[in-house]
């Protein structure tokens, strides 16, 4: 990751913490069209392959006494299924494959993005916003299909004093429409920030090659910082996938049971 920090013949440290997020064509140079094979394509394909390997190849033996891989696959299955059931209710299990898809995609994209030289697809607002919009549209459509105009009761806080209700309704409506924004920016922001910070410290790491005096202090410190933040990022990679999924479940619960 740090290799380009001291470019050949360039004096001093070079900071390009955001270069890792650039979308580039896989083959050759040029503009990025809609169907161009890019690093996005590559890492999303790897995400699909990883999911396929774990959940399909890992369970191919259908063992009653599971192997390690099968155990992990079952653990993930149970984890998300329980989450959907506990948070959104039993009738939300129809959406279980859909939610599982989102969870696994985010989880694996986050973890694969932690590999050195990797491209983190979930650090892009374009990706997370599409997923957040999908959730938002699903919730809104399901809400109206299931409850008709009764879904608007979600915004009418009947337990509040009558005078306050219109004000609260306004706030509720705004918060409802802000949901997809916060939903998507939370994930992309977390991923981007963590990776950028690692990259900044990585840029400091080769200091010892420039100045032995300062480098003796700065290089070990930055390596320690990279390790620490990397460990934190591993945690964040899981937690953000979890948060995105559980919020999806919470929103879905609003659609299925809109009463407060």
């Amino acid at each position, binding site marked *: 990751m740090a290799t380009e920090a001291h470019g050949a013949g360039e004096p001093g440290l070079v900071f390009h913490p955001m270069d890792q997020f650039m979308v580039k064509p896989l083959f050759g140079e040029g*503009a990025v069209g809609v169907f161009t094979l890019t690093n996005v*394509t590559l890492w*999303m394909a790897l*995400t699909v392959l990883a999911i396929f390997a774990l959940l*399909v190849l890992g369970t191919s033996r259908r063992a009653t006494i599971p192997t390690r891989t099968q155990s992990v*696959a079952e653990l993930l299955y149970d984890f998300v299924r329980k989450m959907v059931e506990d948070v959104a209710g039993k009738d939300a299990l129809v959406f279980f*494959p859909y939610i599982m898809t989102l969870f696994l995609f985010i989880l694996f994209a986050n973890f694969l993005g932690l590999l050195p030289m990797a491209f983190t697809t979930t650090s892009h607002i374009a990706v997370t*916003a599409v997923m957040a919009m999908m959730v938002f549209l699903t919730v809104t459509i399901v809400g109206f299909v299931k409850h008709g105009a009764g879904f608007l009761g979600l915004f009418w806080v009947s337990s509040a004093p009558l005078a306050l209700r219109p004000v609260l309704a306004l706030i509720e409506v705004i918060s409802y429409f802000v949901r997809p924004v916060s939903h998507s920016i939370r994930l992309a922001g977390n991923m981007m920030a963590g990776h950028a910070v690692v990259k900044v410290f990585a840029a400091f790491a080769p200091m010892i090659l420039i100045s032995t005096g300062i480098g003796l202090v700065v290089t070990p410190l930055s390596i320690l910082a990279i390790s620490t933040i990397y460990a934190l990022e591993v945690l964040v990679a899981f937690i953000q996938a979890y948060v995105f999924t559980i919020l999806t479940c919470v929103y879905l619960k609003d659609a299925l049971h809109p009463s407060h």
Partner: protein
Amino acid sequence: MASETHDAAGQAASTPGLPQLDLSTFGNQIFWLLVTLVVIYFVLSRIALPRIAAVMAERQGAITNDLAAAEDLKAKAVQAEQAYLKALADARTEAQTIVGQAKAEIKAELDAATAKADAEIAARAAEGEKKIAEIRANAIDSVKEVALAAAAEIVAVMGGKADAKTVGAAVADRMKG
């Protein structure tokens, strides 16, 4: 998304540094994201999730079956134990009846033998008594005869004429007395 798009449009020109806001790559990312999600969705809903659900249900079934079988075997063991205990108790009571029967038989035999012996003893005693009575009776008769003869002799010696009848009456009268 709409609001972000506007922001991105404004900033993409001024800050080429943030690749996230480079609108020209959005189409590409969204396209590949949708492809990816659709593929994952089909892999999950067609293969992975039903398979895992089946495996887990099967395991649950196996566990339930095994537990039921264990329960069954346990019940059988309890049954066998009960049968064993019952057989033991039966054998014990049977032995006791046999012992009782034997005892009763022996007692009956003993009683019969005792009764027989008693009867024999009684019969012998009765016979003895009878003989004694006979001997006594004989003795009395002899005494009577002797007394008659003696009385007649005595009377004759005294010079009387012994009337047998009178003598007999007198002896009988005396002997009564």
